[in-house]
């Protein structure tokens, strides 16, 4: 069981998601469970609910998972995925209202310090546009 909160990155573009994950990984190494997804079910730009569910599964931590998204569709699809989680995981995945790259790096750093899911989200959201 991982002792740190996990991070999931959801972008319309797989390149953006992977690049963002690389940046987080460089900051926090393997201390934080980390997964990304990007692209619609046919591989074009967009997001996919099954892919988001799979990414949450890969980054799963008993302490919870923070999800970072880019644009509106990624947010709506992530909210839908979070609602579809099995009951035992409900309430332990939170969406962060923050810019994807900066938010993921901040969330990853906070998570690597062993902070709670709520603290991880709060730190990411300090970057929220006013």
């Amino acid at each position, binding site marked *: 069981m991982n002792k740190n909160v996990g991070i999931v990155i959801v972008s319309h573009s797989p390149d953006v998601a992977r690049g963002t994950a690389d940046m987080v990984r460089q900051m926090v190494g393997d201390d934080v469970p980390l997964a990304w997804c990007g692209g619609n079910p046919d591989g074009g730009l967009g997001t996919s609910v099954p892919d988001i569910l799979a990414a949450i599964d890969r980054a799963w931590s008993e302490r919870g998972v923070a999800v970072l998204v880019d644009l509106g569709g990624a947010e709506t*699809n992530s909210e839908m995925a979070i609602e579809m989680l099995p009951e035992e995981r409900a309430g332990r995945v939170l969406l962060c209202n923050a810019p994807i790259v900066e938010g993921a790096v901040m969330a990853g750093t906070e998570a690597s310090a062993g902070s709670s899911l709520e603290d991880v989200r709060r730190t990411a959201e300090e970057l929220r546009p006013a």
Partner: protein
Amino acid sequence: MTNDAAARGRLIRAMAERLIAHAEELTALDQAIGDGDHGLNMKRGFETVLAQADTLAEQPLPEALSGIGKTLVMRVGGASGPLYGTLFLTLGKTLPAEPSAADWPSALDAAVAAVKARGKSDAGQKTMLDVLVPVLEDLKRGGDGLPGRLATVAHAAAEATVPMRAVRGRASFLGERSVGHMDPGARSSALLVDAVVAWLEEKA
């Protein structure tokens, strides 16, 4: 009426074929004010629905509608997946196994409320709700001319999104420049209403 599999199959195909046939038009509308993926996204979702039409039609109507919703959620790939998915899932959850005409206003009421919650939106923001809300209100009003009247209401409502300014979704980035174009989600909702009304009239 909705208790026979053949009729349910016709309804499912009517909705799917209508959306697929208008995919390019929806894409063109979305290119004007969004990211241009609405047509392809709806097409991908409804092509899967079409492929499942026989299996879906064998189930009672609420389960069939929930099945459509689940497929749209999993396959569409844009915000319209969860939004239309929620509409169908909520109809499926709310309708009784053998719905009568009287069950539809309250079921659509619940479904439209769920779409509002999912999109954190309401009528007047240049979205699909600008069609769904007036259609719901007209359905609740009842009286003569249903269901045909609903298609007229839906098309007028989609047309009425042209001068609106978007405040939700990608179109909101354009601000004033979103004015002057029909909302693609409003258009796809009107197309769905069309398909359902045509199906009801064919049966009548």
